């Protein structure tokens, strides 16, 4: 029984791992921390898995547990906090369809998002993932109106970071 559950869980996580990687990329600055956080999220997801009833999509459920882990449960390793390696983690668009300026602009924007605080980052992340304000509000535990207001403020904050 336990083995079946384990197998099912690993398959589902394997299929949806991109969500977790995106969160790791946003909340950490180097490969080691990325892997650390991925591991902790995996453990937390597995711990919560028995409570996942399947009335929502696995991926929807994942957002909450993964963000909870990144923001609240995960303990950043001290020695790694300062090692900023933006080249590795900045927003990469490996494609020639875009001209250089747009690509650079996107990389700058991604960097600006990374400079936000943990909570603002979560809001922006969910917004970029096409989540509705209702879902964003529920994940964070705030009201929908407040989520909208906050998002507008973050937009302004990002603009100031980009055009100081």
């Amino acid at each position, binding site marked *: 029984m336990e083995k079946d559950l384990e197998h099912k869980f690993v398959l589902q996580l394997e299929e949806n791992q991109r969500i977790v990687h995106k969160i790791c990329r946003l909340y950490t600055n180097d490969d080691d921390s990325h892997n650390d956080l991925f591991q902790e999220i995996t453990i937390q997801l597995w711990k919560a898995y028995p409570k996942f009833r399947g009335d929502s999509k696995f991926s929807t459920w994942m957002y909450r547990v993964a963000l909870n882990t990144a923001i609240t449960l995960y*303990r950043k390793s001290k020695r790694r906090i300062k090692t900023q390696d933006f080249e590795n983690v900045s927003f990469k668009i490996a494609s020639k369809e875009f001209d250089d300026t747009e690509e650079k*602009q996107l990389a700058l924007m991604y960097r600006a998002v990374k400079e936000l605080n943990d909570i603002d980052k979560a809001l922006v992340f969910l917004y970029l993932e096409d989540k509705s304000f209702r879902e964003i509000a529920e994940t964070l535990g705030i009201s929908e109106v407040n989520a909208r207001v906050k998002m507008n403020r973050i937009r302004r904050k990002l603009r100031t970071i980009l055009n100081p």
Partner: protein
Amino acid sequence: MDELELLKKQWHRQERDLPELSYNDIYNMLLKKSSSIVRWIFLISIGEIIFWTGIAFLLPDSSKKFTDDIGLHNPLLIFNMIRYTVFAVFIFLFYKNYTKISNTDSIKKLMQSILRTRKTVRYFILYNIVGTCVILIGLNIYYYFNQDLVFQLMKNSDDIQASMNKEHFISMFFISQLVLGTLLIIGIIIFYRIVYGILLRRLDKNYKELKKIEV
């Protein structure tokens, strides 16, 4: 269109160069131990309980003999019984809070339940500090009114030289009690500040951010 909308439009393109873990990679992660702050708080709480309980058993025999001889055997026994009952209540509260923490709650609710656990920890710390103060003060008041006995008992042990006169000894005795007691209390406070300060700094900051959104 502002930059955020531009980023949103291109957001899913980054998926191409995200790392890809295999089934086995993920499976192996399940076998690893969590290092979440909740687990740390829980482990530290257990460590504390073992530490404070252990300290009572680790007291040297000479010290036990001293308190027995001076007539404090029964009061200390009662005191320890009360202490362990309170410890048991704290263990129960810790465990109850711990099981209530759920990573499927909203971010805010999760933070609240962790902070509730912290509050219990705080009371536990406060209890230990106040308890230590009370017993130190109580003991010294008792010693103060039984100076002759203290001097006699100490003289019989090898701790002091027989040549030392009583007044000199008693003032030395109380000064060293005061210094050691103060150092002990300061040590306990610093220890807790460091441990929980490190553990909960980030959570505190994020919780304040979330509360700010609400006003």
